[in-house]
């Protein structure tokens, strides 16, 4: 009556990229104790190695070079190993590697060089990866917390500095509040459908709608609360308020990493929940999923608020914080598009493409701020990049590339991402919100160009501190941004295999 599952039933091999990372992180946690204080470079290298191995495995799996495990499910459906999982893993791992490269010198010169940094970074990367692999709401919740808790700690990593501590506590309280909503939402969905697995939810939703039971309101409420919980993670309006404050206060190297990783994780989970769990949640008399109009409304608000408020910012970290809010809005267009039958796969691909483009660009942009920032954490205003082009021509040129990419100028990765997202929006007949997207990205050109203007056309000191791991990180990010912009088929090929089983 109760069969004990064997190890092979778990299909452990399919989870290899994540498993390797989990093992590596755990081992590193112990190993770091034996690394002497002055030689934390070793920890950083080991972290890079763990990420690298995991990245290679994920890439091989994504490219269908090797076939890990049997079938797409592992741990009885808690973990799903398909192209989407692999693509999300690749994005997260690339981000994490850049994050390590960006952090090393910064930690050294600001006196924060401690081994936990890298271990925590690995664990949060694991959380983000698992969010993309989630096949069950339990996985979503655990992965979300695994992503978030290390990030709370990292935000406060410059302890004894009021700013860093404040930002950590703010992030924590707002995050915990959002978790509460998520968990309660999960409870309600479970109450309505009797299961937490996406497959089961999907099947139950159909029955529920067919029977037209009143329980569908419970489901609706639960879905709304889950949406709010994840919306917080991706910094969508109205759950965005923590973003600028936390980004400004947290150590910049942390922000470089978390601005992308948290977003990737959040969106991956959103795609899984909405396109896999609830695609057929179509109320009678409507053609698109019940959540679509809400999501596109949030997308519109997010784009407008993010872009408009960014115009008025003078602190670069805050400016990029609002910019990251705005970018969440663009991606939400694609998420909303998933609600239209037949567009789901295309839209999910657009999400992945956008995130990949965004990863290189945004980590790069923050890395430049890391270089400009002083040891005491100050010097991050837009005034501080005045004349950067004269003193540091390569650094300024890289920043210009990142800014142009964020603005979505053709021949940069950002343009490719926007192209696919807007295309998905149009394909789903979400014309108004797509137009808002296009118009607000025209607004965004203003504040991105302003940064370029300050670097190139204003006189100033333009001091920056660059050492080689940071220089490599910035170069990789800049070259990646350009390559993906020149050869967009790299991105579209990466996402080609993504097909969500139920959403279609």
């Amino acid at each position: 009556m109760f069969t004990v599952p064997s190890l092979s039933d778990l299909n452990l091999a399919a989870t290899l990229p994540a498993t390797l990372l989990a093992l590596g992180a755990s081992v590193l946690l112990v190993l770091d104790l034996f690394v002497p204080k002055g030689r934390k470079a070793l920890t950083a290298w080991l972290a890079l190695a763990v990420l690298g191995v995991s990245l290679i495995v994920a890439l091989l799996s994504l490219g269908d070079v090797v076939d890990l495990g049997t079938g797409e499910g592992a741990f009885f459906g808690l973990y799903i190993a398909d192209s989407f999982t692999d693509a999300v893993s690749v994005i997260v791992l690339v981000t994490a590697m850049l994050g390590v490269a960006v952090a090393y010198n910064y930690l050294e010169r600001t006196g924060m060089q401690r081994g936990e940094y890298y271990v925590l970074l690995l664990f949060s990367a694991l959380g983000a990866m698992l969010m993309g692999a989630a096949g069950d709401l339990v996985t979503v919740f655990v992965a979300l917390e695994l992503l978030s808790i290390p990030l709370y700690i990292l935000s406060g990593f410059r302890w004894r500095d009021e700013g860093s501590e404040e930002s950590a506590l703010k992030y924590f309280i707002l995050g915990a509040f959002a978790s509460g909503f998520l968990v309660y939402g999960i409870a309600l969905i479970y109450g309505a459908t009797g299961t937490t697995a996406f497959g089961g939810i999907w099947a139950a939703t159909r029955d529920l709608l067919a029977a037209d039971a009143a329980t569908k309101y419970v489901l609706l409420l639960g879905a709304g609360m889950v949406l709010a919980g994840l919306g917080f993670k991706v910094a969508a309006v109205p759950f965005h308020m923590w973003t600028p404050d936390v980004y400004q206060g947290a150590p910049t190297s942390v922000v470089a990493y978390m601005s992308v990783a948290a977003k990737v994780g959040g969106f991956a989970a959103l795609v899984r929940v909405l396109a896999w769990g609830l695609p057929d949640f179509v109320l009678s008399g409507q053609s698109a999923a019940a959540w679509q109009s809400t999501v596109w409304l949030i997308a519109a608000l997010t784009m407008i608020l993010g872009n408009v408020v960014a115009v008025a910012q003078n602190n670069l970290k805050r400016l990029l914080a609002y910019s990251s809010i705005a970018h969440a809005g663009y991606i939400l267009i694609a998420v909303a598009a998933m609600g239209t039958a037949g567009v789901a796969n295309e839209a999910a691909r657009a999400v992945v493409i956008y995130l990949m483009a965004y990863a290189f660009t945004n980590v790069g942009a923050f890395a430049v701020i890391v270089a400009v920032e002083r040891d005491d954490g100050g010097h991050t205003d837009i005034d501080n990049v005045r004349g950067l082009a004269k003193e540091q021509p390569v650094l300024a040129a890289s920043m210009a590339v990142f800014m142009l990419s964020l603005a979505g100028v053709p021949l940069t990765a950002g343009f490719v991402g926007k192209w696919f997202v807007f295309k998905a929006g149009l394909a789903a007949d979400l014309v108004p919100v797509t137009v808002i997207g296009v118009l607000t990205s025209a607004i965004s050109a203003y504040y991105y160009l302003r940064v370029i203007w300050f670097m190139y056309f204003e006189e100033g000191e333009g001091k920056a501190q660059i050492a080689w791991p940071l220089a490599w990180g910035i170069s990789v990010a800049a070259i990646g941004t350009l390559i993906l912009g020149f050869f967009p088929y790299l991105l579209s090929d990466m996402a080609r295999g993504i097909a969500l089983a139920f959403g279609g």
Partner: protein
Amino acid sequence: MNVNWFSADYLPWLILFFPLLSFVIIVLGTIRNVVASQVVAIAGIGISWVLSMILFAKAVWLADETLGEHVYGSAIDWLHLGANTFRMGVQVDPLTAYMLLMVPLASLLIFIYSAGYMHGDPHEARFFAYLSLFVGAMLTLVVADNLLMLFIGWEVMGFCSYSLIGFWFHKKSAMEAGVKAFMTTRVADVLMLVGIGYLFIMTGRMEDGPGFTLSFQDILRNEEMLKFLVNAQSVIWGTSAATLISVLLITGTVGKSSQFPLHVWLPDAMEGPTPVSAMIHAATMVSAGVYMIVRMFPLLSAGANFHHFEYNTAMYYMGIVGSVTALGAAVLAVGQSDIKRILAYSTISQLGYMVAALGIGAWVAAAFHLVNHAFFKALLFMASGSVIHAMEHGEHHAAEHGHPHEHHEEPDGLVMDYCAPPNDVNRMGGLLHRIPITAITMAIGGLSLAGFPLVTAGFWSKDEIIAEAWHGGLWNDPYPLFVLIMLLLGALLTAFYTARMWFLAFWGKPRTPAAQYAGPGWLRDRWVKWWNKQPFSGEDKLEQEHADPVTNRSAMLMEIPLMVLSFFAITGGWIGIHKDIVGKNPLHDFLAPTLLEHPEVVPFDFTPMLVSMIVALGGLGLGWWLYGRKPLAAGQTDPTEAALGPGIWKMLQNRLYIDILYRNYIVRPLERAAEKIVVEGIDRDTIDASLESIAEAAIWLGEAFKRFNTVVIDGFVDTTVEGIGSFAGWFRQIQTGRIQQYLLFVTLALLALGTLFLIQVR
């Protein structure tokens, strides 16, 4: 893969490659070495020009008759989209070949001219880098075989124009002008991009079609596709997809080619160095806009049967916007004193002719005028640059001769009726004897612009547009008649302001010391010798003057391109004379196969030709009567000003108060509303200004209409940034930094969203 890079199929890649290569080399290598940068830039465009000529020759003399049905070209796979593959490539059909005759040549001459004009500027190398990128982008646009690649060139050009207009970034006015140009064209670009995206989506919906595509061949030479687009319903107002796409694309041109109502950026673009103006007005930017609608004409006119005077929405849109622009800009050009601004409005007006020509189906005429205009407008701009240069020199010379420098205060930012002293035609006079080559070449360019009958290029192409409007207008329909009347009035004014400009600048006696000592230009010594020998010189004998070799060299570099362009400003028109006059119209025969449905030739009619001759000669004659017969003396009022009265004159100089009105009625109220001090009321200035303008409106009919345009359009563009700024201030109030207020906000927002969520369930 075997690629013969010099076959006509691959040559276009090389043509666009070399200027881009120059850009890269200058940026990465020679940025600190001015001479090397000049050489690299000129070599890049030079090679490109040679290759273009080879390609053009091949297209004209060596091609099979079917060029058009088949095109030269090649493409690479660029993006996999499910079942389709998006290909990026180049193509050369007759239209592209004709453009390749003009773009590299005009650009090459502008480059050579820049070497003289920018001499001594601290950022000269960077200037050449931008110019190279600018041309590279334009060439990309011209040889592109699909709309996306065209759009990439289009956007890169937008960026270059922003950088080049604001090139002298220490000047606040230049910076503002750059931003204005960028923001204005960007508004249009965004709409155009939506159009492109929509076209892309629609092509994919066609059954048994080519799938998702933006390729010109797949769309424009595919009757099924055009029919499908005409019949497909679009998302808005039950219009067809073709109409919606066309209107969006044309809007892109309205911004790029500076058509009413987005014409506001071009006159301010004068703040950039003069070679940039020549570039923007002739070879690249604005030509790109018209080129795009010429290229997309089969789509824009899909569903219309204009040979039988049935037009569609897109054509009405083009015709009305074009002809309103053609006349309106000509009116404004009459009231300008800045030589470059006169030319700027004349460009806007001439582009209006081309757009209006497409609006009535005169496709060949539009392409013809596009290329002719590029030649004579490049000539005019470069000549005006030479004039300005000479005037600046004159100022220094005058100081050496004991005339103290006049003190000019540069305004801080854009001021509408401010005219920089060296640009002011009222401060010139008699320059014919100082810079004779410039004077003569500018006269040739001016005659071409005015459409001097039978000889000049401008006459033949403008005449063809007018003839087509006449053909449709007199017998059939009020719409072509409207276009015809607007264009004829515009032509009259064009001839008039051209004559005014030339006579004010070059004729009579110098009106300031600066003009007296201007230049001297290249070959002035010969001119002096020749002049003094002539019996009509009478008492006015000129003195020889020693010019130092450096000045002489840069004057030469600037004036040689003028002479080359003069040749084209005359002869460029001879290839397109109506076949009933000379037996064969080679241009028409060459271009016609570009379109699937070959354009028809309207029967030759002597009347419109006579009318356009009368109009051109009348305008020139009026100009001569007012300015040539009795040249303006120093301190005398401009006769046009005297005739119109100071009120209207001031209005024209202030560009119909466009920007002042916008400041009073849009920006300030917005700012106030944002600052929540509406209560404090409107200040005195605004009240006075509004009373004043009400009086003006009553005096001058038609003003109201233009004011509408001003407020809505200029206001929209210029306020965008400030408006956003004040909204941002409002939004920022919620960002208090207090956790619990955030939480409260989140909770309230959640309740609101939840309510919405539940409402739609019901």
